[in-house]
C-alpha cells in the first residue's frame, strides 16, 4: 500500500481540481511538465510580495533577503543531488541550457576535427542538437550507442564506442519517450576507465528517484525544475568543481565578474562565473520549495507510489486488445508510451482531451526513437506521485472510447 496520503497531497495541487470538457481533469502529462503545489506557488508569490530585490548587489535589507533566499535554494539543490559544494551548482534556465553550457564551455575548447562525442539513440533532442551543433562548429563526429527493440541501450559495443578520440559521453538517465532507466553508474565507470568525462541528462530522473552525483561519479548532471514541481525557466547544472574551475564562462555580463576595465575583466568565482546577468531568483526559490516538498513526503515514498502506478497501468493497458506498448525495458520510470492499432496518436490525444485526459501525443522531442520503432508518434501517459489508481482506470476507459469511435 502507498505510504502517501494522496487525498491530502492532491489538496496541495489546486490545478488538479477542475473540470475539462465536463470531466474531472486527469493529468497524465507529467513528463512534459509537472504541476506545482501551493508550497511552490506561495514561495514564489511570497518572494515577490515580501523580499523582491536584486541579488549579490545591494546592501539594503531586501537585497540581502533575496540573496539569502537564492543561495539557500542553491544549497537545497546541492543536498538534493548530494553534491559536495554549493560551488558545484549553477542555476540555468533548464536542462537544455545546461547541456549547451557544457558543450560550449567545457567540450568545445578541447575539441579538434576528427574527435568524437558519444550519445545514445534514445536521447531527447536537447541532448542531441547541442552536440550536433558543436560537431558542425569543430568537425568532430557524433557517435550513437544503439538501442534494442524493447527500448534498452545495447551496451555490447560501448567499449568500442568509447575511443581515444571521445571527448565526452552525454547520456540520458531516464528516457522521456520510453521511460527506460539507463544503467548510468556502470556506463560512467566504463567511460572513466578511459578517462572520458560524462554528462548525464537527468531531466526525467530527478522527479522520480534519489540522485546522488557523488555515488554516480558523473562529471556533469543537468535537470529542469518544471518537471519536478518547480516553476518553468529554472534548472541546474551540477559539475565537478575542478572541471568548472578550469572552464571559461559561457556568457558574459553582470554578476559573473570580480572587476572590469576596458583592458581586462577578472571573472568571479564559482558558481557566479556561470551566472551572468540577473538570475531567475523567484524560480530558484520555487525550485528550493519543490525540493523541500519532495523531501517532506520522502522521495523513496514518491518513487514507490509511481512505480505501483506504472505497474498497474502497464498490466491494464497490456491486457487491452489492439494496443501496443512502446518501450518495455526491465527498468522503467513513470512513462507509458503506446499505440492504438489503426489510430494516429493525435486522434487519441483529441479524444482523450474530450474526456478530461491530458496526455502527450507526438514524437516527444525524440525523433530518432520514433524512427527506430518505425512510427511517426506515440501517445504517452506519464505519472507523478499525485496520480491515483482511479486515474489509471480513466486512462484505460479513454483507450476503450477511442477504439469504440474508430471501430
Amino acid at each position, binding site marked *: 500500500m502507498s505510504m502517501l496520503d494522496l487525498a491530502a497531497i492532491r489538496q496541495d495541487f489546486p490545478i488538479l481540481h477542475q473540470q475539462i*470538457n*465536463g470531466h474531472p481533469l486527469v493529468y497524465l502529462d507529467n513528463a512534459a511538465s509537472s504541476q506545482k503545489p501551493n508550497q511552490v506557488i506561495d514561495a514564489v508569490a511570497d518572494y515577490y510580495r515580501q523580499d523582491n530585490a536584486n541579488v549579490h548587489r545591494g546592501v539594503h535589507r531586501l537585497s540581502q533577503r533575496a540573496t539569502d533566499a537564492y543561495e539557500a535554494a542553491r544549497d537545497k539543490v546541492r543536498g538534493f543531488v548530494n553534491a559536495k559544494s554549493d560551488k558545484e551548482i549553477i542555476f540555468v534556465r533548464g536542462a537544455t541550457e545546461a547541456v549547451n553550457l557544457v558543450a560550449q564551455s567545457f567540450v568545445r575548447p578541447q575539441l579538434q576535427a576528427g574527435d568524437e562525442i558519444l550519445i545514445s539513440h534514445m536521447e531527447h533532442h536537447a541532448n542531441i542538437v547541442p552536440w550536433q551543433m558543436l560537431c558542425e562548429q569543430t568537425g568532430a563526429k557524433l557517435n550513437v550507442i544503439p538501442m534494442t527493440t524493447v527500448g534498452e541501450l545495447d551496451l555490447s559495443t560501448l567499449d568500442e564506442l568509447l575511443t581515444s578520440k571521445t571527448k565526452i559521453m552525454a547520456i540520458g538517465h531516464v528516457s522521456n519517450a520510453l521511460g527506460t532507466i539507463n544503467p548510468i553508474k556502470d556506463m560512467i565507470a566504463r567511460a572513466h576507465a578511459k578517462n572520458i568525462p560524462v554528462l548525464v541528462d537527468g531531466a526525467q530522473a530527478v522527479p522520480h528517484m534519489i540522485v546522488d552525483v557523488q555515488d554516480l561519479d558523473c562529471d556533469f548532471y543537468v535537470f529542469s525544475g518544471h518537471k519536478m514541481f518547480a516553476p518553468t525557466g529554472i534548472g541546474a547544472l551540477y559539475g565537478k568543481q575542478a572541471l568548472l574551475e578550469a572552464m571559461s564562462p559561457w556568457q558574459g555580463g553582470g554578476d559573473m565578474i570580480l572587476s572590469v576595465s576596458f583592458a581586462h575583466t577578472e571573472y568571479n568565482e564559482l558558481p557566479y562565473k556561470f551566472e551572468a546577468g540577473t538570475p531567475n531568483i523567484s524560480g530558484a526559490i520555487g525550485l528550493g520549495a519543490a525540493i523541500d516538498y519532495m523531501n517532506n513526503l520522502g522521495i523513496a515514498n514518491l518513487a514507490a507510489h509511481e512505480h505501483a502506478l506504472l505497474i498497474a497501468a502497464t498490466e491494464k493497458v497490456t491486457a487491452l486488445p489492439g494496443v501496443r506498448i512502446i518501450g518495455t525495458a526491465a527498468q522503467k520510470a513513470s512513462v507509458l508510451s503506446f499505440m492504438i492499432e489503426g489510430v*494516429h496518436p493525435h*486522434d487519441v490525444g483529441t479524444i482523450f482531451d474530450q474526456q478530461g485526459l491530458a496526455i502527450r501525443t*507526438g514524437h516527444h522531442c525524440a525523433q530518432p526513437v520514433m524512427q527506430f520503432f518505425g512510427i*511517426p508518434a506515440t501517445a504517452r501517459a506519464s505519472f507523478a506521485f499525485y496520480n491515483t489508481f482511479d486515474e489509471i482506470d480513466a486512462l484505460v476507459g479513454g483507450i476503450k472510447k477511442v477504439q469504440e469511435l474508430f471501430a
Partner: protein
Amino acid sequence: MSNADLRDLYQEVIMDHNKKPRNFRDMTNANHLAHGNNPLCGDTLVVFLKLNGDVIEDVSFQGSGCAISVASASLMTEALKGKTLAEAETLYELVHKQMTGEEIDSSSLGKLAVLSGVKEFPARVKCATLSWHTLHAAMDSDHDISVSTE
C-alpha cells in the same frame, strides 16, 4: 456532452476517407509536386499534380498522418479532379475560411463541408490544412518544394 462534439469532428465521411483514402498513390507522370510536413505531429505528405494547361487532370497524395489530415487530403483530391487552377484557388480559400471559423456559403464546398467540425478543435486545424498548403505549394511551383504547417 463530449461525444456529440467528437462526432462533429470524426464524422462518418472522415472516418471512411481515413480508412480508405482516395487517390492515395504515387504519380510517376506528375508535373507538379510538393512535400508537406507538420514537425510538431510528425505528419508528412506529398501532393502530386498533373496539369493539362490550367486544368487539374490528376491529383494524388501519399504520406502518413492522423485521421483528420489523411481524410482532408483524400477529400481534397476528390474535389479537385477536373477543376481549373482558378477554381482550386477559390476552394483553397473557402476551406481556409471554413477552418478558421469565418462565415462562408458551405454549399459551395460540397463534401468538403464535413471538415467544418475542425474549427471547434483549434489544435487540429493544422492537421486539416496541411494537404491544402501542400497543394498550394505544388500549384505555385514546377519543381519539388517543401512546406510546413508549424
